[in-house]
């Protein structure tokens, strides 16, 4: 009579090395989709740049570099504050984590305000979506990013409301970290947009 060895569940080795999921799986599905979307948009940018190099070389000189720099500083600073919020939560400093998140929200709100003034400046200098291929791609990409940032700001508001009522603890802060991951991803995208439109002349 033959015998069959049945492996015990705990003895099965993992098929692939695993790491942690910052936040939760759902937000990383969203972030991956966001990355794919912007890769397509960057593809449009590079195809347009390859076809009209002169338009792209002169276009950056007409944009407000000051506005681009201010938006970049707002993005990296709000990203930093929200990263500090997550770190404080891990350290068990819940109130400090709340203050960092609030600071992140206040700085993040500066982005749409700065964008509003940038558009006013553009229009005053005769720059609109029909001013040439460079500006069409510029408006398309930067408005798209603004939409994603607006979702992020709404997310910050939601997470802030949950934080205020004690929705996160040092043992369970997945929602806070998910928001932070999304905001950092949106920050990375802006850090690519900034030099493509405001620096490379």
């Amino acid at each position, binding site marked *: 009579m033959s015998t069959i060895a049945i492996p015990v569940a705990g003895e099965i080795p993992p098929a692939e090395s695993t790491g*942690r*999921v910052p936040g939760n799986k759902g937000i990383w599905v969203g972030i991956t989709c966001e990355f794919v979307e912007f890769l397509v948009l960057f593809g449009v940018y590079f195809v347009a740049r390859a076809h009209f190099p002169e338009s792209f070389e002169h276009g950056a000189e007409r944009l407000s570099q000051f506005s681009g720099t201010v938006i970049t500083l707002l993005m*990296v600073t709000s*990203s930093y504050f929200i990263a500090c919020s997550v770190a404080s939560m891990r350290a068990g400093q819940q109130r400090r984590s709340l203050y960092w998140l609030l600071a992140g929200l206040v700085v993040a709100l500066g982005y749409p305000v700065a964008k509003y003034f940038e558009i006013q400046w553009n229009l005053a200098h005769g720059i609109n979506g029909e001013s040439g291929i460079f500006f069409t791609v510029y408006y398309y990409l930067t408005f798209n990013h603004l939409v994603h940032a607006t979702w992020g700001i709404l997310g910050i508001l939601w997470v802030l409301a949950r934080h205020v009522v004690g929705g996160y603890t040092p043992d369970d802060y997945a929602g806070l970290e998910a928001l932070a991951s999304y905001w950092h991803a949106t920050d990375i995208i802006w850090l690519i947009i900034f*030099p493509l439109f405001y*620096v490379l002349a």
Partner: protein
Amino acid sequence: MKPLIQPLSQPQPSSAIAPLTHAWLALVALTVISPFLGHWLHGVAWLPVLVATIIGFKGWLIARRFIEIELAHPFIRRVTLAFISITPLALLLTVFFGNQFARWATL
């Protein structure tokens, strides 16, 4: 159920503020200097190389310090690093092989 003792080889997410501050200061410095680089190196052939390097480095800083990508699941790590790498490479290809790319991308 969480194990009572974590294996020593498995690094834990950081709760320190200092590494985040260092990364933020580097990001601010690179951001502030970027427009000046654009002016000073206007027309210089290797400006796109410098810009592509800065894009990659800033993205890597955010990924490493803020997202802690080295602790993340391999899929998340690969997706993020691929996204950070593709655009600087595409920029260099477009700048140095623009004509060929334009021909290839013409319908």
